């Protein structure tokens, strides 16, 4: 079942899905697993599993630190794929690889796609790989039934959005504002206008991310987006108040 179809199915029973995020090996794989159990219980629909990279230039301070610490602890790409396999077998949600292009480039694009497939993943997000450079990878992905998630942004022109829309598969990731991951986005007319503009260029489900952190954001997105993408906020809660806090956070968010 493709991602688009999966999202449509899940949307039959709720109006706004949630995609969550963990950085592999930070604070540890054991804690990742606890986080994901809580996310699964809360009914999270999709999870991006970030493979740590030494130069995470699109990430904000919290994820930068997480990438760095995970690598310092010795996290390898093999471990990340093993973990992907483990969680995609154990949980109902679908799993995406998230990371930087060099990870895919170094192992070879064909192998990268193959390993996602073998590990039960359904797609990937590589924020530093523009569509101009994606031709071969997208072709390999289509053959394997793995979906590349493309980002649409507030600075994208209509011409660019058309290009991005044409290359998109599965779903589209709408970046709600400029900047890196983790800062607050003020949900307002700008975001609605952006979603509407993106909508003109794709029929795929749309996830909105960057700065989604509370129930008010969810209420705001309902009716405009198909998925809310929650990243930094959840990691912050986990660090501040552990399992209990995270359980409360998702319960409130998805109430």
């Amino acid at each position, binding site marked *: 079942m493709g991602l688009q179809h999966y999202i449509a199915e899940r949307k039959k029973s709720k109006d706004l899905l949630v995609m969550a995020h963990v950085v592999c090996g930070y604070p540890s794989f054991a804690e990742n697993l606890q986080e994901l159990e809580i996310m699964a219980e809360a009914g999270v629909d999709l999870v991006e599993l970030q493979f740590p990279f030494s130069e995470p*230039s699109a990430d904000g301070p919290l994820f930068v630190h997480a990438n760095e610490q995970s690598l310092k602890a010795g996290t390898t*790409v093999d471990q990340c794929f093993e973990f992907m396999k483990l969680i995609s077998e154990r949980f109902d949600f679908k799993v995406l690889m998230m990371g930087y292009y060099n990870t895919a480039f170094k192992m070879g694009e064909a192998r990268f796609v193959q390993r996602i497939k073998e590990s039960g993943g359904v797609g990937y997000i590589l924020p*530093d790989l523009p569509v101009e450079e994606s031709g071969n990878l997208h072709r390999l992905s289509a053959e394997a039934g793995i979906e590349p998630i493309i980002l649409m942004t507030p*600075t994208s022109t209509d011409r*660019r959005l058309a290009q991005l829309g044409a290359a998109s598969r599965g779903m589209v990731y709408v970046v709600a504002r400029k900047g890196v991951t983790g800062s607050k986005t003020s949900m307002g007319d700008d975001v609605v206008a952006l979603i509407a503009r993106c909508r003109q260029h794709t029929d795929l489900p749309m996830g909105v991310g960057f700065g989604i952190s509370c129930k008010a954001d969810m209420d705001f997105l309902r009716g405009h987006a198909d998925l809310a993408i929650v990243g930094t906020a959840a990691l912050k809660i986990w660090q501040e108040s552990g399992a209990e806090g995270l359980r409360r956070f998702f319960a409130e968010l998805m109430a």
Partner: protein
Amino acid sequence: MDIFDFSEGREGYYGEYGGVFLPEILHATIEELLVCFRECKADPKFWQDYVALLQNYSGRPTPVTHLENLSRKLGGAQIYVKRDDLNHTGSHKINNVMGQGLLCQRLGKSKVIAETGAGQHGFATATMAARFGFDCKIYMGAVDVARQRPNVFWMENLGATVIAVQDGQKTLKDAINECMRDWVTNMADTHYILGTACGPHPFPEMVSWFQSIIGLEAREQIIKQTGRLPDRVYACVGGGSNAMGIFQGFFNDDNVELIGCEAGGQGVGSYMHAARLAYDDATVGVAQGFKTYFLQNAEGNMNETHSVAAGLDYIGINPIFSYLWEQGKVRFEAATDVEVKEILKLVMRTEGLIPALESTHAFVTAIKEAPTMGKDEIILINQSGRGDKDIFTIADALDDAKWKAFIEGKADQYRKERQ
């Protein structure tokens, strides 16, 4: 040879190296920069303004000096030096920065950001920003801030805000990442003044274009002084901007050999160096916006690098050199920290020149090879920066006891004044 004459669909690529690997949010900004750069490059008036600015502000053209004493001592080739150390702010970095300043005016942006390692590029950028009236932020790894206080002092006094970057290895590459993060937020009014011929297209081409002034001058000067072209041209290579600068003057001269000198650090097999092409440790990868040879592990995470010269201490090499190296157009050698310290002393004593530790790498390789060449052969070295302003670093590198005693005395004095 025009390496910037890209074939259809391969804009920004040199062989398989280069390209643009950036978050989608920067696509429009990079497009805008590319369009503006193309206009500037096509406009003869822009280049005239650029040259005039460097003449009136930075002391160009910088001279070429014949090192008669050193040539005699080595008994081989005649050694000439292009003196880019005589620029305002003490290095070739000012060329690129002034050019991008003019470009930033055309873009209509009021703020500039820049990364810096040793502090030379930050210093030059702060200087340019003061002159042009731009708001200026310099990102610098916390480790570099700690070891390069004099440059930080000047940047701050020139009105720039210096931000110590606490991520990663806290050095140059981390400062570049932090610039990217600033840029993805503030691109509407901010131009990123990348300091070397690395990063996403059009930066490698743009920085090379501004630095080509070195080679244009040098070719004319050496012919005027010696009546002929040099046999070999040496330049140190960190990112590769000064080397691209001087080498471009000789790209069409088939009999001129071009030699890039990388940071050998603690030597072959030490894994404590920044020699991407001269040693076998680097592999092709994609990071910091472009594809090239990086010092990285098998999974694509970057390794730690080391050099006595902070300005050469970088994980990747400019994509143009990866290509030219493969094509056999540029040879790459490495100089170790130990060799650099020895040769710096030799050059100071023999010629009264104080090259920057970075530039001394080029001297090391040239001085190794000069004795094997004929007396009628000619060597040209690019002295990209001067060392006297890096007195703290050089005194450290030379382990100077009297300097240390002076610093201790100074510290005591400050301590007493505070009490």
